[in-house]
């Protein structure tokens, strides 16, 4: 039992003690403290490795290809991070990714201007988030089950309204250029969304209540936080980002496919969040980390393709990478906790 902790050593002592050491150990401490930094380092190492094995890796064409892929994943991952921090999970974001562009397309076909059609495409996304949240919170069903159900439901809806065939949107160069029609536009969207959501998470009351809800649900309720609405709100945000990612991708790819996205992109987004340092148990996470996680996954996937490694091997390596990251995360957070107490 911790009986003599009433006057524990002030925390400020730790960096002071370390200041006497050299630059290297201070850098080590920074990397140890910051989850984001360690992932960024991993990303840089991977880039260097792939550049030596496949010189085309850093060519403009490949960078655009890689960035386009990572950007979309990171946008969905930002939403998943919010939901995961609040203590839930959204498995249906990848299906919303497929549905929203179709709704947008049909709205535009009906004569609605493109910008307005994009907004109309996002309405079902928001509604799906709202309904998922209401079912999860209201009926106290684990979100894993709720969103597993909506995953199939939405997929069926998308296949039905599309008849199973892809369609081609014709937005014109301006609209396409603004809404993700090229890799640079997608990168700007991804970075802007990362900044906005990181700000929401660390500097606003919404972010603080989200952390409180996932960190200590009963405690948050006891102080009067409406934890149900916090969860529902984050489901809506996640769903909206799923829909937005789908719409942006439809302009980049130039085609809307009813089978695009799905569980593949959803699991990639969750993997990005987890590799980036977000806990599946709630209460803790980072949007910046999720973007870096998506970048690392993109680099891995793209690098292996360029070096001629087959897709089967990629999945094995991805699986191993997730397991190793989880192990390191668990070890690191234990070490961090111990370091703080000493």
């Amino acid at each position, binding site marked *: 039992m911790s*009986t003599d902790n*009433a006057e524990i050593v002030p925390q400020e002592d730790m960096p002071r003690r370390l200041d006497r050491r050299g630059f290297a150990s201070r850098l080590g401490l920074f990397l140890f403290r910051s989850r984001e930094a360690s992932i960024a380092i991993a990303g840089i190492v991977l880039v260097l490795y792939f550049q030596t094995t496949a010189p085309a890796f850093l060519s403009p064409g490949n960078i655009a290809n890689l960035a386009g892929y990572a950007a979309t994943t990171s946008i969905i991952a930002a939403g998943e991070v919010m939901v995961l921090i609040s203590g839930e999970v959204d498995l249906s974001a990848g299906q919303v990714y497929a549905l929203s562009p179709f709704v947008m397309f049909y709205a535009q076909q009906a004569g609605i201007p493109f910008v307005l059609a994009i907004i109309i495409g996002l309405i079902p996304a928001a509604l799906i988030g709202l309904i998922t949240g209401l079912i999860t919170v209201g009926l106290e069903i684990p979100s894993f089950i709720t969103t597993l159900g909506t995953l199939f439901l939405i997929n069926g809806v998308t296949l039905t309204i599309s008849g199973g065939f892809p369609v081609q949107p014709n937005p014109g160069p301006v609209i396409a250029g603004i809404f993700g029609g090229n890799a640079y536009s997608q990168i700007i969207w991804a970075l802007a969304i990362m900044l906005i959501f990181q700000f929401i998470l660390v*500097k606003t009351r919404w972010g*603080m209540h989200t952390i409180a809800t996932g*960190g200590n649900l009963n405690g*948050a309720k006891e102080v009067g*936080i409406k934890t149900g609405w916090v969860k529902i709100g984050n489901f809506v945000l996640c769903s909206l980002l799923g829909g937005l990612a789908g719409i942006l991708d439809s302009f980049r790819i130039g085609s809307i496919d009813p089978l695009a996205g799905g569980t593949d992109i959803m699991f990639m987004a969750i993997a990005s969040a987890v590799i980036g340092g977000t806990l599946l148990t709630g209460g803790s996470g980072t949007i910046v980390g999720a973007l870096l996680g998506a970048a690392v996954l993109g680099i891995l996937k793209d690098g292996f393709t360029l070096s001629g490694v087959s897709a089967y091997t990629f999945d094995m390596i991805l699986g191993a990478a997730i397991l190793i990251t989880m192990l390191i995360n668990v070890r690191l957070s234990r070490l961090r906790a111990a370091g*703080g107490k000493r």
Partner: protein
Amino acid sequence: MSEEMLRTEHISKSFGRVTALKDTSIHLDKGEVLGLLGDNGAGKSTLLKILTGFHQPSGGKIFFQGKEQVLKSVGYARSLGIEPVYQDLALINELSVYRNMFLKRELMFGGFLRILDDGAMRKQAKEKLKLMGVNIPSVDVEISKLSGGQRQAIAVARSVYANAKVLLLDEPLAAMGVKESTMILDVIGRLKEKGDVSVIIVAHNYAQVFDFCDRINLLQNGEITFNQKTSETSVEELTSLVVSEYRLARGRGPTV
């Protein structure tokens, strides 16, 4: 006669067939520290949860500052100034000390964006904790880095800061070492000196809190069986009372 803060009259509460409280009447004056003692299962937690608005009583009346009140929700009880400090403390491990102090009472700017004013919250939290004599390394550390006593002190400080008129402390010394208990009792002592907050301490270990209470109520089997000023009783008397009750119950057993 000092000003009355809180009074219950003939409060009862049953959960299905189980009767947790039979007929409980207590009162609390302004600035008074009342020790609500009793064994495990005596009904202490039930009474506390009725006072916080968490449970609704099956019968009886509650008066706050002389006015009859129905404590219909935790939020309503809190709006009156009844602030509970739960056993689980309702602190968020992942948030800093000052953010926990302002949880649900955040200082913000930026209109609908609700941006947190961390600077102001940090400063006020520091001042308040210093005033209450709570000693922690920094208000920026996460709650998870603090000891049990420090956490308890922060939970108490948070409630006091919320302009509590009546503070309900549920087993504040449970699972705490000597040094930590002293820290909490110091904080309570300081509150008592100021005299603008009334306190109910719920505890099963009465020896620990005895000196800090003005009055002792003993709750046994859902009834108040003892009500004395601390100056007119002693730990020994309480012990013999509890023991004789226990013997009585045991002696009664086979004959009934």
